[in-house]
């Protein structure tokens, strides 16, 4: 455990009957960092977030924020700002009143003028100054979540907790708002824990992404590292697309599709295994002597996605830069090989 960690979650456990919502989760977050927890539903990511907010009691574990043990502190004393998945604005208050609500509750009641200035500043930050006097029912979903973000930030929270705040919004607003969340988070330097099941969301805005499974952290790393160097088969398969291609492993490398590439740590060390190959790690070249056939090709703009039928009858997905894809139409004979990048290899079956 690093001494510099601002938030330390140590061995958190929560069991609902036989279900292990959290099963020994440990996680450190540095000050000002944005960590995303990613995982399939039921992996415990929301439980972890709610535990840190104080909304979920734990069976075991310790939580330290800014050097203070908050494990048994009640939720209304923790000073965490939270944005929820469901719309959570108080319906009888205007946007401004919602943002000011947390300030009116502070022990040393923030003076009216100061409060007004603070709410104006935050509504400005989320781009809703003109909507200050609107009631929640007069705001769109995206606007409501912006106000919710401003409300959470108004109390200058120790940690900002985001519980899938974008999942109720449509795709375009989602992309826009997630970039804005990142901009504001960097601007204010607020330590943030972000929970999502959308890997694109996690990979695009987080400093580090933690992949959770069965109440434990499988791997936590910067987005690029998580994608390029997964530690486990679960991470490799959950984050991004992979093609399982059989090969023979020995001495830290695998022989696959007629080439040899290095295996990543955590892979099996000997015998036959399945290399989990990213679509963009496959090289596809038109060749009359090739033993594979393009099954279908779809143009995506900068790149082209190909579905290729290999000699053994299995199908793989490859993604090649569009200029290289000229002539790779359906039915074309091609040669498929691996780019020289390390791959994760899991046991067969």
């Amino acid at each position, binding site marked *: 455990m690093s001494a510099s960690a601002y938030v330390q979650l140590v061995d958190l456990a929560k069991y609902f009957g036989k279900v292990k919502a959290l099963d020994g989760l440990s996680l450190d977050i540095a000050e000002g960092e944005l960590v995303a927890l990613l995982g399939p539903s039921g992996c415990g990511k929301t439980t972890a977030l709610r535990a840190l*907010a*104080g*909304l979920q009691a734990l069976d075991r574990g310790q939580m330290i924020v800014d050097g203070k043990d908050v494990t048994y502190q009640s*939720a*209304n*004393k*923790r*000073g*965490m*700002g*939270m944005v*929820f998945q*469901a*719309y*959570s604005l*108080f*319906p*009888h*208050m205007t946007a401004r009143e919602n943002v000011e*609500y*947390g300030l009116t*509750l*502070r022990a040393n009641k923030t003076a009216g003028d100061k409060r007004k200035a603070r709410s104006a500043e935050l509504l400005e930050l989320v781009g809703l100054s003109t909507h200050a006097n609107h009631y929640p029912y007069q705001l769109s979903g995206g606007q409501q979540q912006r106000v*919710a973000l401003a*409300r*959470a930030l108004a*109390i200058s929270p120790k940690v900002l*907790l985001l519980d899938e705040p974008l999942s109720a919004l449509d795709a375009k607003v989602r992309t826009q708002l997630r970039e804005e969340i990142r901009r504001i988070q960097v601007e204010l330097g607020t330590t943030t824990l972000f929970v999502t099941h959308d890997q694109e969301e996690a990979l695009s805005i987080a400093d580090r992404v933690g992949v959770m499974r069965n109440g434990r952290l499988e791997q936590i790393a910067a987005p690029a590292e998580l994608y390029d160097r997964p530690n486990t088969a679960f991470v490799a398969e959950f984050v991004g697309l992979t093609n399982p291609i059989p090969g023979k492993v020995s001495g830290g490398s695998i022989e696959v599709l007629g080439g040899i590439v290095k295996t990543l740590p955590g892979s099996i060390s000997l015998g036959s295994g399945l290399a989990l190959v990213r679509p963009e790690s496959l090289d596809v070249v038109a060749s009359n002597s090739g033993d594979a056939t393009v099954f279908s090709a779809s143009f995506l703009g900068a790149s082209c996605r190909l579905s290729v039928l290999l000699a053994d009858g299995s199908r793989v997905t490859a993604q090649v830069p569009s200029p290289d894809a000229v002539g790779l139409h359906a039915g074309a004979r091609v040669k498929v090989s691996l780019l020289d990048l390390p791959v994760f290899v899991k046991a067969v079956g």
Partner: protein
Amino acid sequence: MKQSIWVRLWRWTIISFVAAYLLVPLYAMFDFSTKSFGLGDKGRNFRAWKMITEQTDLWPAITRSVITAAIVMALIIFLIVPTAIWVHLKLPALRRPFELLCLLPLAIPAIVIVVGIAPLYRWISINISESPITLAGVYSMLILPYTYRSLSAALDAVDIHTLSEAATTLGASISRVIFGIIMPTIKTGIVNGSFIAIALVLGEYTISNILNFKTFQVVIAQIGRNSGTVAVAVSLASLLFVILLLLIIPTKKRQGTVLDVDIA
């Protein structure tokens, strides 16, 4: 075009029927209360209406009933509503039993309730007070089926879990969550439930009569025994008063937040 005329005609037919259904009895009451029954009297007169002011029993009874209604209102706001919110929020397992409990007063005939609580009220009138205001206790039980249903519907219509969690993370205590956030949110449900409750308090006869309490409704019945026209005039007056009240209250919407207090 042709169809729209028929549709409009149909619409007005229905509206007329409903209007007649509501207004004819009111007119009949007015007609009866202004009819002359004395010998030699002709046409209409407002003798019955003037006699309302001469009923010495009436005004104290109205005051008592209004105070009782106010106490019942207070019990709704400070006891029943927070309890319903608490059950919905923290004790979901108790929702069914609580609902069943709240429905009981509807299942038990009023007369059975009276027989059951008569000894209790004998004790109350000896040891605490003889005032009919003590009826607020029974009434707050009788109104449970109606109040709880409308509260429960209002609570189900909003995501009170998320609202309460949002307020909690912002630093609100549980009493602030209940009185400052959830109650204003379900205001309509509370108002609806309270209206039904007040209507019941001002209209319930069996219990207050058998327990010998002179409430508004008991006094009206007494007046009716002496003079039918006066009783009808009083009834019509109180009906018009309630209708007026119903027309005024909904227009007083959105004026400041309700009940933002911390009672903890």
